């Protein structure tokens, strides 16, 4: 494989997610390439769900349609497993005197958002107020959810410096459960006041579950992407953002509220980055004046000058037949350092990295479990 220097058109096909008719002119070779790329980016189920209408599907060659159908089944199965877990969790938690909040994919499903269709959920993300975190965890454990075994350092890392507990598993549920008390770590440079999030919850289609208000969902999605350590192949997060902005953006007052909320939560940089890439790569209809003011506050010119090229290099999806370019690898490493510095003060970070370096985990891959 040669290295990818980004000269190809890896984003054009994304138009089909908004406008399914765009697939009509695709050749077999284009389909092959799109399916490979979309699969790696965890967007194949999304693509399959938008082209399943018979008038679109009749233009899809059978070689490709077969893979779309197969992935749609897989995504439907995973979504079903997520819904099944969400419908049973309230009973496992019992009658609790605090709100139970769905995040990310679970929240999209709980509101029947268009971006939830065909979306491959990774795990169950739920949020409770920090003062009730231990109680929620104890209740889940009594109901059979078990923490992933971790060493003492990792336990402490999650408990003191993290915004979520170690992932939990249940013998009857195929998905991992992440119990959050915030959307960003408490020691991070950007500190989010979770009380503000909890003050504006909204109902979901399940009475026991609530979701963040629309602007907070957008800001969470943006913060989740731009504060993460691993940014490669994260185009799906941008597609989520684009979908959220298109869906909620139609409501009157949404955009001004979004900018104000970013200021209140201290997430202006994440929002500015999100709007930049979403508008640039996915043609999200962001009001231009708002985009300018958010950028002016969240991403001043000196910062944009070095951050935007780095994020662009890392987020750009690599050609399926090429290795990441040296530029992309370098940019990923620079952003990783920035991520760590933003997440923890050096006095915590250096011992943490030292520990991670000595105990690098060895993954043990297995066949997709026969019998699951």
């Amino acid at each position: 494989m040669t290295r990818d220097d980004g000269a190809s058109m890896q984003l054009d096909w994304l138009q089909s997610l908004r406008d399914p008719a765009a697939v009509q002119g695709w050749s077999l070779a284009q389909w092959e390439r799109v399916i490979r790329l979309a699969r790696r980016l965890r967007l194949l189920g999304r693509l399959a769900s938008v082209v399943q209408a018979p008038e679109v599907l009749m233009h899809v060659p059978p070689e490709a349609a077969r893979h779309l159908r197969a992935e749609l089944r897989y995504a439907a199965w995973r979504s079903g497993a997520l819904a099944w877990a969400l419908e049973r969790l309230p009973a496992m938690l019992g009658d609790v005197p605090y709100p139970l909040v769905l995040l990310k994919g679970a929240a999209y499903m709980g509101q029947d958002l268009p971006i939830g269709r065909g979306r491959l959920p990774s795990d169950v993300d739920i949020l409770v107020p920090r003062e009730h975190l231990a109680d929620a965890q104890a209740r889940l454990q009594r109901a059979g959810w078990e923490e992933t075994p971790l060493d003492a350092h990792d336990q402490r890392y999650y408990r003191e410096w993290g915004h979520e507990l170690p992932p939990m598993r249940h013998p009857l549920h195929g998905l991992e459960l992440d119990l959050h008390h915030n959307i960003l770590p408490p020691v991070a440079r950007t500190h989010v006041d979770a009380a503000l999030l909890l003050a504006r919850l909204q109902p979901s289609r399940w009475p026991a579950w609530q979701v963040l208000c629309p602007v907070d969902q957008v800001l969470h999605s943006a913060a989740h992407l731009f504060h993460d350590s691993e940014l490669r192949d994260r185009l799906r997060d941008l597609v989520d953002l684009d979908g959220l902005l298109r869906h909620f953006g139609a409501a009157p007052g949404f955009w001004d509220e979004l900018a104000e909320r970013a200021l209140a939560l201290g997430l202006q940089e994440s929002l500015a980055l999100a709007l930049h890439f979403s508008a640039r790569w996915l043609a999200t209809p962001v009001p231009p004046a708002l985009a300018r003011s958010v950028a002016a506050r969240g991403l001043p010119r000196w910062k944009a000058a070095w951050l935007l090229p780095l994020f662009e290099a890392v987020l750009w999806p690599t050609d399926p037949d090429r290795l990441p370019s040296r530029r992309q690898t370098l940019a990923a490493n620079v952003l990783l350092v920035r991520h760590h510095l933003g997440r923890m003060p050096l006095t915590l970070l250096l011992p943490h990295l030292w520990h991670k370096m000595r105990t690098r985990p060895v993954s043990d891959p297995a066949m997709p479990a026969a019998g699951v």
Partner: protein
Amino acid sequence: MRETDHSASSLLRQGPESIQRQLAQDGLHLDLGLVRLRIRSSEASVARQLFEVYRHYVPLQDPCWCDLQVSLIRAQGLRSWLRPQVRFFADGAMNFDAFPADHGLPLLEWGVNWLIGRRMNDVLLLHAGTLERDGRALVMPALPGSGKSTLTAALSLRGWRLLSDEFGAFDPQAGAFRAVLKPVALKNESIGVIRSFDPGAELGPSFDKTRKGTVAHLAPSPSSVARVHEGARPGMLVLPRWQAGSPTLFEPVPPTAAFTSLAFNAFNYAVLGAEGFQAVTALVRAMPAWRLVYSDLEDATSKLLGLWQQQAWRPWPPLRPQEPGLPALAELGTSA
């Protein structure tokens, strides 16, 4: 009797250098029946290993479509100087741990099986050895200790057509099993057992100290390669168990036990939901099921043939064409 390879362009005729050239350029394209596979690699050892175990395959020239696209690439970094390793990539993503550089074939086989099991949810994928005779499929689910690979390999050397050593790929639309033709992976003692069962068996190199011990692969025969697109209607279900010193015994298996042996040894039974349940139910109704306990492979294969020839096959709806036009995605629904 060894079948002769009549194809002028099989890998055996092409030789390792030609294979290596294809691997390094646009890729080597192999038709496995259920899927078309493209392999790329710059490793000379991979070319030699493929030459051994895919010897009767005729590579496709410039196919306009491949279902799986994989690469075996030498791992980079300082450690690679001390311990050279090879990595498996699919579509630019690296999902698995590296293997020693000279273990390219086991990594490829294992990785491709993983991709098929995860991706090809358009058909029901049982975890089973599958062979064909008289247009019917013999299905042997992979129960622990069953030795299904040994028995699958042995039967494939006694005139049964190999469909797959790993997958019972049942297409409910067509009402037929499809081939997922790859070399049979033999482990540890099975390698010697098959070598003495048929001294002419076309076995590839042995790979020591893999995750499953020593592994060697049996090359599929020329006719199984040539007939890779011929499906097989449901025939018989056999649950084999090797037991030291035991005579060859057959005993009928009740449908409930047959059902669990299929459904709970599948890669995507749950993924297919109601359709998976209906397919397995239909299979159990159509296929007589037998438990087979044996110690002597020669005796087991000949008695199995005898049992097979006494079966009165139950009817199954006639085969429809393999590509039934556009699949109806709409019927599946997307939300939970």
